[in-house]
C-alpha cells in the first residue's frame, strides 16, 4: 500500500502555532505545570510531547517530565495485525497522583488511546489522564474524546491522514490522501 497525498492541510508554521496554543491550554486547564507529566504515544506522539514540554518549559521556567509509551502489547487487535517490532516504553518517573497528558498525532477510532490508558495504569495511578492530539479526524469506535485538539479534520473512512514530523520525516506537515495498492 502506498499513501497518495491529495492536499496538505497543515504546514510547519501551523504545527508550531498549534503546539504553542496546546501548551498554553494545558497550563490554563491545569493551572500551571506542577504535577504535570507528558507521555507521548510512539512514534510521533513522543516527539510532539517533547516539543510541547519544551514550550511549557519556556513559559513556566520548568520543563515537565516526558515519557514514551508503546501500546502494541495492549492493543485489542493483536491477533488481526501483523506483528510489528515493539518499541521501548520509557516512563522513568513516578506517575502516581500526577496529571498525565497523553500525546498522540492522530485521534481516529480511539483504540490506541484506550490501549495507552491501560498501559499507563500499569505504571501507577495518575490523578488525571488527559489527551492531546495534533489531528482529530473523527470516526470514534469508543467513548473517548481529546482534551486538547490541534485541528479537527473531517474525513471519510477511506481517507488517510499522514502526519510528518521533522524528527522522523525531515519535515513538519499534515496531509490528507488515500492508500493505494
Amino acid at each position, binding site marked *: 500500500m502506498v499513501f497518495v497525498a491529495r492536499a496538505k492541510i497543515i504546514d510547519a508554521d501551523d504545527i508550531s502555532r498549534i503546539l504553542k496554543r496546546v501548551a498554553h491550554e494545558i497550563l490554563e486547564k491545569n493551572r500551571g505545570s506542577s504535577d504535570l507529566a507528558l507521555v507521548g504515544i510512539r512514534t510521533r506522539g513522543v516527539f510532539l510531547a517533547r516539543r510541547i514540554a519544551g514550550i511549557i518549559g519556556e513559559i513556566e521556567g520548568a520543563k515537565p517530565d516526558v515519557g514514551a509509551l*508503546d501500546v*502494541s*502489547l*495492549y492493543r485489542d487487535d*493483536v*491477533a*488481526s*495485525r*501483523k*506483528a*510489528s*517490532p*515493539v*518499541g*521501548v*516504553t*520509557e516512563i522513568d518517573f513516578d506517575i502516581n497522583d500526577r496529571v498525565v497528558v497523553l500525546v498522540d498525532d492522530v485521534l481516529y477510532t480511539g483504540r490506541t488511546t484506550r490501549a495507552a490508558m*491501560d*498501559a499507563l495504569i*500499569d*505504571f*501507577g495511578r495518575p490523578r488525571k489522564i488527559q489527551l492531546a492530539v495534533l489531528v482529530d479526524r473523527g470516526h470514534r469506535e469508543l467513548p473517548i474524546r481529546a482534551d486538547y485538539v490541534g485541528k479537527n479534520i473531517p474525513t471519510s473512512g477511506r481517507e488517510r491522514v499522514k502526519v510528518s514530523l521533522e524528527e522522523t520525516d525531515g519535515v513538519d506537515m499534515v496531509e490528507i490522501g488515500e492508500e493505494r495498492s
Partner: protein
Amino acid sequence: MNPPEILKSGVSGPAKVQSPEANRPRHLLSIAELSSDDIIRLLDSARSFAEVSKRPVKKVPALRGKTIVNMFIEPSTRTRMSFELAAKRLSADVVSFTPSGSSLSKGESLKDTAKTIVAMGVDAVVIRHSSAGAPKLLTEWVDCSVINAGDGMHEHPTQALLDLFTMRERLGRLEGLKVAIVGDIDHSRVARSNILALNKVGARVLLVAPRSLLPDRVEEMGVEVTGSIDEALRWCDVLYLLRIQLERVSESRFPSLREYTLQYGLTQTRWSRLKRKPLVMHPGPMNRGVEIASVVADEVEPVITGQVAAGVAVRMAVLYELLGGST
C-alpha cells in the same frame, strides 16, 4: 454421534479456524533457519520486553487468551521457568507437561502426547527433548507453534539469542565481536546455536577445546580453533565458558577434571594476569572450581545473572513474534 459443528472447530485448535494457508503456525526450531535480520529483529524487540520486567506491574495483555504448553521431556529448571515467566508476563496461560516415565519408545510417546495436546487446543508447545530433531518431528504432528527449548546435541536457539542479547547490550555491538567458546563443544547444543548465530551476525568465533571434544569437520563451521585458553584470553572480547557435564568425564574422550581445569579452566591466576578483561559468560549452572574458579565466578556473576534476566526478555520476544500477530 457426531459432535456439533462448533465443538469440532473448538477441538481442532485456533489455527484451523481461519484459512490454514494464511494462518499456518510458525515455529522456532533452530538458529540455522533464521536470517541475520530475524535475529536482530528479535534482539531489538527483546529490549522492549526487558523493560516490561522492570515495571511495577510486570505483565502486558499481548497474549491474553493464548495457551502455551511447556513440554520438558528432559529435565530443566531455569529454561522451563524462564519460558513460563515469559509466557505469564505476556498474559498467556501456561500448562506444564511432566513426563511420567512411560516405557513407550520416545518417538511413540512423543506422538501420543502431541495428539493429546492438539485435542486440548493449545497455541504453542515449548519442547525440550534429549533427542535431536524432536521439535521438528513435533511440527509434523501438531497444528500449533513449536518452540525448541533444547533438543539433544542439536540446538538451543533461545539460549543463543539471550547470549547475543547480553553481548550486544553489554558491548554495544555484535559485528566484528571476538567470541571465544571454551569447553565440550561437540556435545553442546548451546555452543552449536551460538556459533551459528554469531556467524550470521558477523561476529568472529574461536573455539577452545581439546581435539577430542571438538566436532568432526569443525573447520567447516566458520570458526577458528585453538588448544590454548591463554591465547583465547589475549584475543577475545567475550569468553564464553560452557558447563562441563560431569557425567561425560568418565568417557574416554574427556581429560580428568583436574587436567581440564589446569588446561582450559578460567583459573584465578589466569584471570588476575589479564590487563584487559573480556566479558565472561556462562549458560549456567556453573561448576565452580572446574571451568571457572570460584572467586572469578563471584566477580563475573552480575553478567551471568544478567543472562538469566535476558532469557525472559528474549523468550517474550519469541513468543510474541510467533503468537502475537497474524502472518
